[in-house]
């Protein structure tokens, strides 16, 4: 089975509220696909449709070319974390994984393996009612990994994690993707996915607003802006403008140069014999790129009160 998720033209209404309005995207293997958008954009609904929990009115959501509902022992094909609070509080963490393992006829050894992978060994024999949100997220990830599936779908896995946990989660997701898994991670905070996501699907009001590789997006958002610090401000402006750059003054010793790569700026300054103390290419953060991308999209400014589910 191919490790992909293909979502095509999903539509779903809850009464008068449109939850999904032609949602279409693909989750490819080997990288983390960030699934972002404001609350109510349809992220969770899409995930529930992929998992066969909710029924779409139209469209298809295929896991490795098949509907989830047709999968036998589905946790071996797709692991999901939708709601970390979906636990019986009186059940121990390990027992929660144990019943899931039984349902997929998985060996008990897998339970201890995923506990180790998620760093939950010490809490495994405690009742989940006493878990922090971060521990529940880890238990949810452990449950998703139980069947060692090639596809992972995680809804807001960073919620409730402490900074250390966020770093752990990023590294963990990168490592899982590097193994060739297809991973869809929803989030409403882009900064969480910095250095993790390889692909970005931005949604709003039930449909895809942007579907792009993260590298290209950041390059585009960064532009060719170079920050230059020099005491010979006027001369530098003359030289660089002469080479075709647009130069603006940022403050007394700092200029922002657009239209020339940093190497070319350095070469031109050297030719002209002008001193400088800093030349740095500006690199946009994922968050900045995301803001740029969604700046004009009305979906992100006036969200109508749509059903949250």
């Amino acid at each position, binding site marked *: 089975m191919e490790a992909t998720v293909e979502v095509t033209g999903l539509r779903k209404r809850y009464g008068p509220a449109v939850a999904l309005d032609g949602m279409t995207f693909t989750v490819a*293997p080997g990288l983390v696909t960030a699934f972002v958008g404001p609350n109510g954009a349809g992220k969770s609904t899409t995930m529930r449709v992929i998992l*066969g929990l909710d029924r779409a009115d139209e469209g298809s959501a295929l896991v490795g070319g098949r509907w989830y509902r047709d999968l036998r022992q589905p946790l071996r094909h797709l692991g*999901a974390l939708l709601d970390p609070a979906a636990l019986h509080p009186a059940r121990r963490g390990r027992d929660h994984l144990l019943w899931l393992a039984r*349902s997929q006829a998985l060996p008990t050894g897998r339970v201890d393996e995923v506990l180790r992978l998620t760093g939950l060994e010490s809490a495994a024999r405690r009742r989940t009612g006493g878990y922090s949100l971060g521990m529940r997220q880890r238990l949810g990830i452990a449950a998703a990994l139980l069947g*060692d*599936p090639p596809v992972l779908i995680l809804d807001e896995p960073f919620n409730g994690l402490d900074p250390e946990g966020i770093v752990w989660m990023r590294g963990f997701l990168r490592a899982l993707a590097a193994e060739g898994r297809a991973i869809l991670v929803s989030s409403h905070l882009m900064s969480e996915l910095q250095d993790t996501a390889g692909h970005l699907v931005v949604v709003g009001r039930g449909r895809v607003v942007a579907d792009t590789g993260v590298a290209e997006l950041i390059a585009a958002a960064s532009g060719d802006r170079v920050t230059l610090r020099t005491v010979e401000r006027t001369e530098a402006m003359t030289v660089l403008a002469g080479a075709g750059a647009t130069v603006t003054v940022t403050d007394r010793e700092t200029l922002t140069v657009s239209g020339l790569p940093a190497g070319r700026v350095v070469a031109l300054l050297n030719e002209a014999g002008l001193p400088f103390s800093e030349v740095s290419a500006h690199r946009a953060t994922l968050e900045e790129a995301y803001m740029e991308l969604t700046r004009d999209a009305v979906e992100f400014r006036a969200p109508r009160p749509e059903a949250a589910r």
Partner: protein
Amino acid sequence: MTDTITPYRSTVPAARDGLPALVRAEWTKFRTVRGWVVAAVVALLLMPLFGLLGAAGSHGEVGGGPGGESRAGHRAPPTGPGGEAVNDGPYFVHRPLAGDGTVTVRVTSLTGVVLPLGNGPGGLGGPAGGGPAGPAGVPPTEGGAQPWAKAGILLKESAEPGSAYAAVMVTADHGVRLQHNFTGDTAGPPGAVTADAPRWLRLTRAGDLLTGYASPDGEAWTTVGTVRLPGLPSSVLAGLFVATPGDETFEQHLGGFESIGEPAAATATFDELDTQGGFAGSDWSGQRIGATGRPGGAPGTGDPLVEGGFDVSRGTFTLTGSGDIAPFVTEGAAAVERTLVGTFATLTVAVVLGVLFIATEYRRGLIRVSVAASPRRGRVLAAKATVIGAITFVLGLVAAAVTVPLGRRLLRDNGNLVLPTDGLTELRVVVGTAALLAVAAVLAVAVGTILRRGAGAAAGVIVLTVLPYVLAVAAVLPAGAAQWLLRITPAAGFAIQQSVVAYPQVGHPYTPVAGYFPLAPWAGFAVLCGWTVLALGLATYLLRRRDA
């Protein structure tokens, strides 16, 4: 960028998919919530607890002797060929019969009287010390014959109480009957016997087969029926008999049931007696068949009406007797299921467990994890029903199997009458109790799935299943309403616990208060199963159709 990616392949070894895996998963779910395990143990303990407390607090009320006599406890009633408790106290005038033979006789009258309390002991199950009794010593009231007063031809294995027999007879209100071995009853021509309308009767033995005939004139004969008494010895007793049940009135009141019983006597006259076949000798001897379980037949009271007797004068036989020959019927309180009164408590806990088993998943959102693990949702429900059904069945079986023998011993030690039950019936009562719990718990799972709310579902199932039963057996409801409820609600399933049999040939109020359900044991159980199947069907449909 995907060019260089090798899609991931799961390293977990493949295994068999299917319902057994889901059943194991649901079992793991159950046993890993300590509260549920504790509740299951409590449910198991409630049944013996109630049963033994009830038995311990119940001291023999049965068979108290006539006023002031020591209450030495009951005499166990004899058992018939089928193992059931019987009354066997007719007045029997007989001669030995070897091999085949025929008796023909004309019955010209059957009358009866009610003997006032004081001549005989009080009614079974009535309040100690008798009820609203007339003053002792008043002469017999002319109450007329009891509806089931009997007179006719009796052929009996021996004079031993409980021995096999067949009899063709007239009754006061139920026409001609052919009865055998206490439980068998076949109706013949209707009509009462009077001097103007006597009734001819004939009983023929041919090997194991006994055939009863009736005739209005001794010429035109109707076959009432033929019965087989396998193993009937060649040498038997045959002759005439008269028998009558006591006069009992029953009253249901809130929380209970009262019966006021007075012994009765019946007198019948016969003539035109003719015997054919292997009769030996010519002397008829009369005797009252031994003591009966039913008080009122106690010998040694010295009252000729109670003792019975016969008189022959110019070919006319006059027989008087006060005992019955019929199945021993009493309220279920004396039956083995009395020890299982705690079933309703165990059932209540089982229902709550069944509801919680699914409703908690809805409450916590865990149902999504469950159906994501098994997208074939019907199987999730099937696995849950299997697990909760198996758990409640096993705990019910253990509880009932422990409670019945212990409870029975305790009841007997306290001087209570416990009716004998044949092994198969007792097995049905014990296994049926377990099945009742299991099916009700599955019903609870189904209703919990439908409603998705624990409290509402538990209340609903308890109101449907436990409440009608409690209201009916505690006599909160009038008998008619109770019977109606126990026909249509899932509480009908409690019928599976009934070991006592309602015999139409014995006049008795066969009401829930007395331990008689309106439906036969398996029919009542089928009603519960029907409810459960319907609820499971609806639950499966909704579970599949609804977004999880």
